[in-house]
């Protein structure tokens, strides 16, 4: 095999940010390919600076390269300037590690973290030299794999992807490697592609769309049925029971050029049981699995020494909920090796004063912005979405922030939530103004940035039955807030484009018929759709119309409990009747406390999979109400496994 580098390099003088394409990161591998090793190309279907930091991709990159029977390299969607040159000079998609053509790999594995990248997936398959439709591929073409959160509704991409991985990838990539290794050793004979896919369909957590028939009745989905007896009716997600066994990435990649989240990232737990009803990540990654605190400390200390970063982020869906987070934070900040020059960030901050106390401790070095996500403007609506933050929790957090020297606080909200009335929408403006008033007691120039995003209902959540607000309605709600805040110079309002929200809605809850729309948008040049300068709603509306599909049917229509949903054959472990009951509770404005510290609600995950929460403390973390408004006096059995004292790293 020859490297494409001599053909790529002359193109780089003519593109923006050429360092995106050179590899050479610290931690990058240059693996040795052989006929006995299954070659994976892990592709992030977005620009390098967005894809490089992705932890999921880096974890699998290391696990696969540690195996004797596999090699893994990486690729990212080439930006439009390079793509044009590549097509003009007949240069295919390439890996950044050894600049090998994508077509030389056995698997192209895509990470799907957002719906708007779907057209980029098709573009990458095409640039790799393979037919975009799975049915048109032969034994000479790589298998196309996709995983990540969006794979929990695989149907919109079902025509293009050979197999999906549902859930955590750490274990299943090895099982897939073994099956594909036999295929490779057998010489990939004609007809063998169907056989290997049929074998893969029996691997737990693997979904092979071509092994299922889909029946419709008019617009309605009637059934998705396996074509062979050994193919499962429902594909259950994979779950890594104990994060302590997977201390990855061990050698986080250090890019040579600027990327998002350009810092050391250490995952401190996976899963979240706060039960926010809009949050797909929280629903599909249950149960909570904490990494032992000692392992966190070791990964932080080793990572900082190796990478030379001066910032570390402790990542999870709600980092302030990690058992003993204040102790871990103090240990990192006060470690003499770090010379007081390492700053630390906690994404997804809880909204309470305790959290601000921790934030103050960690931002001694460099003070970054402080962001809270109340998500909705009134207590009533926050009960609907189960984000149980009381107004006084938010004001306590904001007061703590301003009194500790912050001058600007960012607040995140959604609009278009179930049952939202104009008073709820305007509640965003009231909260923002009240926060400014608190801030003025400490600084004359105190200000608040309120960001508002249109709500997109996601599969496997209680809101999967809800009819999303249309473009006009979202624009009207944003307009209400703009008018209300027009004279308020201390509140800066930002909002997400409602047109993009509509397209996210089409892809989020679409079925297999949406695939033709994605293909048409791609064929007409619609790539990088999550970048506002490339997004084009007309392309989507025209393609929907050309295929006789209605955005209203897919996006704004409320579903009923007897409807077969396009992802019903994919399981995150959550019982559909649990989700329906939670949807009814939402409409009745009933909140549901966190099951880590209260009795089990039997959502189905722990019981069906025989797994449990792994947390170091059965007590809710210190800090008063925890910003949840949760009544912690409720007794009962606590469904957790306790780690031995001191952890076990």
């Amino acid at each position: 095999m020859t490297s494409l580098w001599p053909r790529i390099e002359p193109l780089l003088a003519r593109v923006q940010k050429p360092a995106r394409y050179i590899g050479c990161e610290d931690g990058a591998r240059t693996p040795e390919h052989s006929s006995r090793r299954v070659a994976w190309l892990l592709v992030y279907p977005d620009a390098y600076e967005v894809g490089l930091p992705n932890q999921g991709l880096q974890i699998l990159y290391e696990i696969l390269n540690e195996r004797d029977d596999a090699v893994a390299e990486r690729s990212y969607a080439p930006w439009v300037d390079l793509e044009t040159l590549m097509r003009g000079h007949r240069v295919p998609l390439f890996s950044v590690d050894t600049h090998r053509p994508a077509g030389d790999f056995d698997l192209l594995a895509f990470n799907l973290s957002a719906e708007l990248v779907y057209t980029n997936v098709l573009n990458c398959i095409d640039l790799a030299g393979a037919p975009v439709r799975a049915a048109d591929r032969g034994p000479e073409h790589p298998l196309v794999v996709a995983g990540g959160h969006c794979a929990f509704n695989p149907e919109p991409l079902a025509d293009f992807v050979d197999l999906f991985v549902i859930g955590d990838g750490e274990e299943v990539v090895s099982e897939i490697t073994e099956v594909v290794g036999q295929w490779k050793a057998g010489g990939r004979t004609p007809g063998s592609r169907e056989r290997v896919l049929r074998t893969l369909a029996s691997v737990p957590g693997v979904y092979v769309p071509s092994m299922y028939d889909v029946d419709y009745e008019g617009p309605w989905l009637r059934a998705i049925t396996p074509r062979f007896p050994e193919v499962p009716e429902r594909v259950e997600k994979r779950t890594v029971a104990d994060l302590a066994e997977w201390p990855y990435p061990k050698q986080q990649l250090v890019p040579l050029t600027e990327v998002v989240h350009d810092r050391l990232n250490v995952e401190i737990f996976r899963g979240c049981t706060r039960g926010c009803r809009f949050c797909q990540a929280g629903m599909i990654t249950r149960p909570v699995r904490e990494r032992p605190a000692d392992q966190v400390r070791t990964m932080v200390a080793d990572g900082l020494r190796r990478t030379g970063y001066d910032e570390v982020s402790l990542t999870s869906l709600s980092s302030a909920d990690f058992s003993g987070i204040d102790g871990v934070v103090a240990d990192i900040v006060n470690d003499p090796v770090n010379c007081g020059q390492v700053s630390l960030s906690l994404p997804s901050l809880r909204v309470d004063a305790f959290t601000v106390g921790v934030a103050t401790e960690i931002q001694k070095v460099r003070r970054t912005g402080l962001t809270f996500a109340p998500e909705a403007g009134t207590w009533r609506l926050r009960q609907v979405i189960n984000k149980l933050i009381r107004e006084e929790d938010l004001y306590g957090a904001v007061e703590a922030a301003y009194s500790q020297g912050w001058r600007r606080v960012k607040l995140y909200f959604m609009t278009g939530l179930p049952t939202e009335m104009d008073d709820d929408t305007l509640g965003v403006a009231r909260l923002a103004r009240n926060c400014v008033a608190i801030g003025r007691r400490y600084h004359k120039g105190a200000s608040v940035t309120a960001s508002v995003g249109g709500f997109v209902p996601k599969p496997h959540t209680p809101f999967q039955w809800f009819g999303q607000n249309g473009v006009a309605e979202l624009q009207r709600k944003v307009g209400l807030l703009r008018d209300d805040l027009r004279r308020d110079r201390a509140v800066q309002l930002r909002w997400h484009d409602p047109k993009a929200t509509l397209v996210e809605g089409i892809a989020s809850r679409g079925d297999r018929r949406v695939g033709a729309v994605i293909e048409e948008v791609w064929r007409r040049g619609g790539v990088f759709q999550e970048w506002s300068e490339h997004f084009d709603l007309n392309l989507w509306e025209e393609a929907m119309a050309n295929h006789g599909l209605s955005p209203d049917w897919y996006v704004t229509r409320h579903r009923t409990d007897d409807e077969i949903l396009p992802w019903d054959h994919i399981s995150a472990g959550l019982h559909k009747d649990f989700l329906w009951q939670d949807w009814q509770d939402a409409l009745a404005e009933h909140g549901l406390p966190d099951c880590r510290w209260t009795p089990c609600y039997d959502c189905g995950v722990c019981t069906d999979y025989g797994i449990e929460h792994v947390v170091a403390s059965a007590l809710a973390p210190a800090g008063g109400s925890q910003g949840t408004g949760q009544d912690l006096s409720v007794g009962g059995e606590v469904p957790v496994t306790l780690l031995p004292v001191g952890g076990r790293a």
Partner: protein
Amino acid sequence: MRLRVRFQKLGKVRWTSHRDVARMWERACRRIQLPLAWTGGFSPRPKLSFGLALPTGAESRAEYLDMELAPDVVVDVDGLPALLSPALPMGVDVTAVAEVDPKAPSLQEDVVSCTWRLGFAPGADLAVLVERALASSSLLVERERKGRLSVDDVRPAILTLDAVVTAQGEPELEALLATQPRALRPQELLRALDPALEATRVCRTHQWIERDGLQQEPLVAAPHAVGARAQ
């Protein structure tokens, strides 16, 4: 303690920008736990100062930076190249380190000219272009700095210019270009010679300062350290 470092930037890493290189150095110093002095103010930065920016895509055998160590820190200067090179990306290698007078002029002020080698695709007829350029009394080029366009006569900044053919038979230009009062960049030189001319490789081989009327390099590379690990 102020140190002057000479390094090279060869191979794929040439596609990184000047800003990227600055970040690489900050990380490298932290990796070998070399305590730097920091600027004061709202957003403190480590005190690293680079010479004239190398264009993205160009290689160099003669890059320099000055670093100021934290107060009272004393290091073994001779041992530094062997520590720093492995902490830097493949293709970036330290070829010399020396202590300099804290009051010495900055690299930006001190460097008066740079030598460049520019490689071209076989068949480029460079001799005619060179002859014509050197015979001209002025060469006007439109160029941009900080968003402002200006038309400048760059002829005075071309100190020497030679067309050569390498041992492999590839045409090259060797140019000594002034950096004061305003540096002439290799791309601007090419535009002055022939707007259609495209170099396949650009390498800065030397930077020059003047001492007592003589030209010399800010630091001489240790012979054994050159050509180490380009990828």
